């Protein structure tokens, strides 16, 4: 039986890279005694796949992994409880859902992600009061540009690209955790971006472009990026990105609700 597990990753765990998170879950499953189905071959490995790697330094409220278990009588509540008991306090389970046997794995269906971008507490002094008070307005203006051209770097080449269409949302929002006496910023940026195997827009790239738009220097160390959700597209067409303005429009559903 296939299951989809939504998990969060915060605190010091943001320094643990994607491959190590995989190893972490493999070992956690073994400790929980929930048996994961093994692949064939001389050195069998657990059948487990992640929706999308999260870069070192980023946190998440909702990343996903799909896993095939040996025992198909287990309830999602049971799995949640047993596996959560093996978590380390900074990586936690959020939700477990059952998948049909023919469900596509999350890696192949993820098509958009939500991110929150905060100024880190120790970097607040680098930013003016106006930066925060004008954040919503500036975010709107940023998105109103005709084009948003960025330089997308790959291992092989650099190319210019207009990513405006692939930014589904970009706005300033109030930081709910903020109070006047703490060191968190009063507001932050929320963005929903195209993601996945066809085209992947990184939040860092959008931030860099936004800073350029504001004519302020960009330093990736100034911001904490937190992924909040990952989506599949109900209207997905293989090898194609559906946007809000394309011929076939995207219809986004959080991965946990998509079967």
């Amino acid at each position, binding site marked *: 039986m296939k299951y989809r597990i939504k998990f969060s990753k915060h605190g010091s765990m943001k320094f643990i890279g994607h491959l190590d998170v995989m*190893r972490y879950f493999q070992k956690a499953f073994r400790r929980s005694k929930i048996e994961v189905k093994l692949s064939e071959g001389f050195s069998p490995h657990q059948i487990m796949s992640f929706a999308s790697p999260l870069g070192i330094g980023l946190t998440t409220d909702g990343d996903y992994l799909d896993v095939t278990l040996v025992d198909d009588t287990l309830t999602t509540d049971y799995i949640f409880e047993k596996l959560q008991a093996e978590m*380390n306090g900074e990586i936690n389970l959020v939700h477990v859902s059952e998948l049909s046997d023919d469900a596509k794995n999350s890696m192949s269906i993820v098509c958009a992600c939500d991110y929150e971008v905060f100024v880190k507490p120790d970097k607040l002094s680098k930013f003016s009061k106006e930066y925060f008070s004008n954040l919503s307005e500036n975010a709107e203006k940023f998105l109103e540009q005709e084009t948003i051209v960025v330089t997308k770097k790959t291992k092989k080449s650099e190319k210019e690209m207009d990513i405006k269409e692939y930014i589904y949302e970009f706005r300033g929002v109030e930081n709910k955790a903020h109070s006047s006496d703490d060191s968190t910023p009063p507001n932050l940026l929320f963005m929903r971006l195209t993601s996945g195997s066809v085209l992947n827009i990184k939040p860092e790239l959008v931030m860099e472009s936004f800073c350029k738009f504001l004519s302020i220097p960009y330093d990736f160390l100034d911001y904490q990026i937190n992924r909040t959700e990952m989506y599949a597209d109900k209207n997905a067409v293989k090898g194609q990105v559906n946007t809000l303005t394309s011929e076939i429009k995207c219809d986004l559903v959080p991965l946990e609700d998509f079967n």
Partner: protein
Amino acid sequence: MQNRKLALSDDILLSVEKPARYIGNEINMVKKNPKDVDIRYCMCFPDVYEIGMSHLGIQILYEMFNQRDDIYCERVYSPWPDLDKIMREQNIPLFALESQDPIKDFDFLGITLQYEMCYTNVLQVIDLAQIPLKACDRGMDDPFVMGGGPCSYNPEPIADFFDIFYIGEGETVFYDLMDKYKEWKNSGKSREEFLFMASQIEGLYVPLFYDAEYNEDGTLKSFKPNREGVPETIVKQVVTNLTDTFYPRKPLVPYIKVTQDRVVLEIQRGCIRGCRFCQAGYLYRPTRPRKLETLKEIAESMIDSTGHEEITLSSLSSSDYKDLGDLVYWLIDKYNKAGVNVALPSLRIDAFSLDVMSKVQDIRKSSLTFAPEAGTQRMRNVINKGLTEDDILNGAIEAFKGGWDRVKLYFMLGLPYETYDDVEGIAILADKVARAFYDTVPKEKRHGKVSIVASSSIFVPKPFTPFQWARMNSKEEAREKRDFLRGKFAEQLNKKSLKYNCHDAFTSELEGVLARGDRKLNDVILEVYKNGAIFDAWTDFFEYDKWMAAFEKYNIDMNFYIDRERPEDELFPWDFIDVGVSKKYLLKEYQTARNEVVTPNCREKCMGCGMAKFKCEDSVCFGA
């Protein structure tokens, strides 16, 4: 959610390689409130995290200490050079992984000394912790710096930097020391008074209380306590019943891949063989096997608590563990189907080991390992390595029949009484193994050529071995032998199937100096460190010239330590330690070596080495 406090800022952690080395919070990490304990102990392996986390000894002591409610034992490893630089620039004190608190606020910093080339890393750790480098400069607010592990059996080259050395196995007198410390802590007594209390515990060596005097030729004249009540001899501490001693059930599980990323099951301690070059073989006598049922139970609990996908067995010579077959088949039956791999230690190649290897390894990908150590039978008799050419060839032939076609052979160059015939013997033996392959496996069954990889390291004489008197080859001699051997490999019939690798002679030379060094070397090591040397064990970072400059500055001749056959009556810097095996016995063995005579192993016959006096129950001394 409240985030864990980290000692390093995001900016630093995101700018260094593998930040996971510095954040702690591994699975099975012990969490205590430092305010609730009386003693804070920081255990250190002075090398990079991935190496240090693979060390079983620290895992044992970590869990043993933390069993006590009044102690919080934490860990630290050497910061990699990238972070080292930042910590110096920004004056960040070295911190423990668990609490992320500065180590200078701890009661103890305990450093394990596994190889000589870590000595500059020892200074790095003490220095970054902002603790005075020399024990004599430390004050009431500084932690006590302790050393232990194999290199502490000749602690003299680094004696200045340690308050206390623990000579022996960690499971024995640590608790006693901790109790004494609690007594002392709030008594208002001086630092020196605590060191005196420590010196009264058997096995603990306080360098401050001893003076060394030298003869004009540089050899040791006398080594004596400089105050009343301090023992003249330090007796090594030995676990007398290994089955009942402490073993960790919940080892730490790192996030990043480390060298030993698996459950390690120590099946026995000590070795019956008595190979004359092997320090561990003498230091860890007598052979003490753990009971099979206990091992099964420990293996189960460690696999359950870690979720590791591999388990391996640890000991100096696993083939000599009597219940090895039962244990290995039990592990395979229980775990292989569950996807937990059984990684075999190096075993004597015979029908049994080939059978288990074929069960747990992909034959096409795995290779056979033999450690003949020397190329001719004459030389193997000198070093007391029981392995014969027939053992090797018959083992290899059986393996070739079973489908293996890759063989690794390990040798040493520069052994005492070595001749060029012995050196050439390495190439000849490698070729014989290749011939055995072509004679055994018909053409149609071969997958290309057989691959024989021979590696040689340079022999370094170590304290407490029969070769402690022996002259070590200079790096020029070693290089000559290596080049000669390389030429001989090229002359062999099956040269295309043979490959020869040789270790770096520079490092071995220095190891030779440090291994049998004396107190005079403290200045050299300090000087090298102050000139920026760290991570000497890493070829990329090793700076030979810095060492040469330091020896020159202090007018110390390296050849005094290596290029010299020591007289039989010479007083050695490590002679004040009683490891159980007597100097008389070692000397007798050295003479036996010269006569090319093999000494029976401990199970065949007791040769009276001296270990029996420890009265270890369940040890080979009493028939186990």
